[in-house]
């Protein structure tokens, strides 16, 4: 008897506990997908079809569907870790996770600025930017003054009222005009170099992209790629009206084998050449070249080491550990030459 009573009591208590939950409980066949970072819920269940339903009826059905879905979304949002903003008295705020629904970006990924020609050179030589103070002591004014710009130390040379004619200069030449001209030239040269660096930094040939202006060369490359992008590698592709007759071949070289039978004299001379190479005392390595290469590498490494010792404040000239590859010329070293072999298949 007593056992029954307990069971009854438990059931009643359970019911009482579940009662408030009934008002927030929603039944769904398929569970909703949530992206709480975007406050987004996706309900995959097919909504009740109502092609004939009148306006008011449809509205009420749509609203009840929306209510159920919102209830589920709100339940998820209330389940997030929450806290009080601005101390204990602030409003209740929930920590949202990162949005998970993938959406396209507005703009492409930022591209790192390609190094300028000077930066490349400085890196090779291990030259670092020195941080100079902006204020220097001006002996004449007995004052700390700017190194550059308005009220600079030593006075602005452009405002000199008198210029000494340098030794060996034409006495009739206007030194003021010369200084002005030089300055203008310097500015123009800097601007020119800046533009040249921009032009160098432009990435060549990434296919056609709907941005920016495509250059003639780029378009030409694109047509070349398009031409061979057929199943038959462009063999049956008709020519465009003004296309050059034979476009330069793309890709790697094709191997050509010497015929198995045929030119006996050529084969004989080839073999003899090979034997002579093997028998001779002359080293196959071009010594001068190899030595030069080695020297250049050592130079670069020493420069890099010096730069590192001097201080690691500047970020610009940061050195690669093995950044001592020569700029050009070092490529065709003697080591490469060793691998050269006479063309064709050898049969003995």
């Amino acid at each position: 008897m007593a056992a029954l009573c307990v069971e009854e009591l438990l059931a009643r208590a359970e019911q009482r506990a579940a009662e408030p939950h009934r008002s927030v409980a929603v039944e769904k066949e398929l569970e909703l997908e949530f992206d709480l970072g975007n406050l987004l819920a996706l309900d995959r269940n097919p909504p009740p079809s109502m092609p004939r339903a009148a306006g008011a009826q449809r509205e009420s059905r749509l609203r009840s569907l929306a209510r159920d879905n919102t209830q589920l979304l709100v339940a998820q949002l209330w389940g997030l870790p929450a806290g009080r903003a601005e101390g204990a008295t602030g409003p209740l705020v929930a920590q949202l996770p990162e949005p998970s629904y993938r959406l396209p970006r507005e703009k492409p990924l930022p591209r790192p600025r390609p190094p300028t020609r000077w930066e490349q050179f400085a890196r090779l030589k291990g030259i670092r930017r020195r941080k100079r103070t902006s204020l220097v002591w001006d002996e004449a004014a007995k004052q700390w003054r700017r190194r550059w710009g308005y009220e600079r130390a030593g006075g602005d040379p452009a405002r000199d009222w008198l210029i000494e004619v340098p030794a060996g200069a034409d006495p009739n030449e206007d030194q003021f005009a010369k200084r002005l001209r030089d300055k203008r030239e310097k500015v123009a040269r800097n601007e020119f170099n800046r533009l040249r660096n921009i032009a160098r930094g432009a990435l060549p040939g990434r296919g056609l992209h709907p941005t920016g202006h495509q250059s003639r060369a780029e378009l030409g490359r694109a047509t070349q790629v398009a031409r061979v992008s057929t199943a038959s590698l462009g063999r049956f592709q008709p020519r465009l009206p003004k296309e050059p007759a034979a476009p330069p071949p793309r890709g790697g070289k094709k191997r050509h084998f010497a015929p198995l039978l045929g030119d006996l004299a050529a084969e004989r001379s080839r073999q003899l050449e090979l034997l002579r190479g093997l028998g001779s005392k002359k080293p196959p390595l071009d010594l001068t070249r190899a030595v030069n290469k080695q020297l250049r590498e050592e130079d670069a490494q020493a420069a890099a080491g010096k730069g590192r010792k001097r201080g690691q404040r500047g970020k610009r000239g940061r050195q690669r550990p093995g950044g001592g590859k020569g700029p050009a010329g070092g490529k065709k070293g003697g080591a490469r030459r060793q691998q050269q072999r006479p063309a064709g298949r050898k049969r003995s």
Partner: protein
Amino acid sequence: MEALDRVVKPKTKRAKRFLEKREPKLTENTKNAILIKGGNANLTVTETLKDIYALKKPFAVLYKKKNITRPFEDQTSLEFFSKKSDCSLFLFGSHNKKRPNNLIIGRMFDYHVLDMIELGIEKFVSLKDIKNSKCPEGTKPMLIFAGDTFDLNEEYRRLKSLLIDFFRGPTVPTIRLAGLEYVLHFTAMDGKIYMRSYKVLLKKSGCKIPRIELEEMGPSLDLVMRRTHLASEDLYKLSLKQPKALKPKKKKNISHDVFGTSYGRIHMQKQDLSKLQTRKMKGLKKRPAAKMTEEDEGISPKKLKSV
């Protein structure tokens, strides 16, 4: 792209800041929308644009004058507008005999049209028509998409993605729970898309989660899909690309199980078994003679101590 190819240098700091704001960024700013009125726009379309402007407000620009352009035929003017006001979402409204009450919703990538979908308005109830309290400006909406149609084909999937992109507003780390007061509900059924916006009323339920009641707020639209212009697969993929710097770095040797317990894996040095202390026995003890010879050989004093 633009930043690097900035051939013309900004002359003032302000101009430089302005240009920097528009450059591609690692974490992007909230997408802005332009709402453009076409050459012929009737009252319905104009009101729709105004209402959507009211919903989007801090992140939208409403063009009030007519712009005679047809996005599906020529996208250049849209691209120009997008570049001018630095907006990557657009909504274009027009009305003509062939396509009455026409809305074109779309988005840009790198100032070029990525996706654009034409929607016809079948029924429109304005924000003003419903005499209810409205939610404050700039409220982040809850977005709900109902209906299996949204996963049926690529066009609907893109439409869903586009609508999320358009209405989601800024991404925020935290949200005030009492401030969740506005739902945009999109239902796709019977070949139509029903867009409804409701104001949320949080009622007491007796438990922690409040009971939700909804109140129609407007604007509500019944839309049908017309023409579409979707980005090619590879361009879309390119636009989805995420920067490597933003991806969370994988932590090595830490794993989690389904219950959320974290496990660590520890790598130990190999144990030197020769130094293992085994059971001491009288028989194995080194005799003084052996000790002497070892000492002669010059073993470190540390080792001798242990013996």
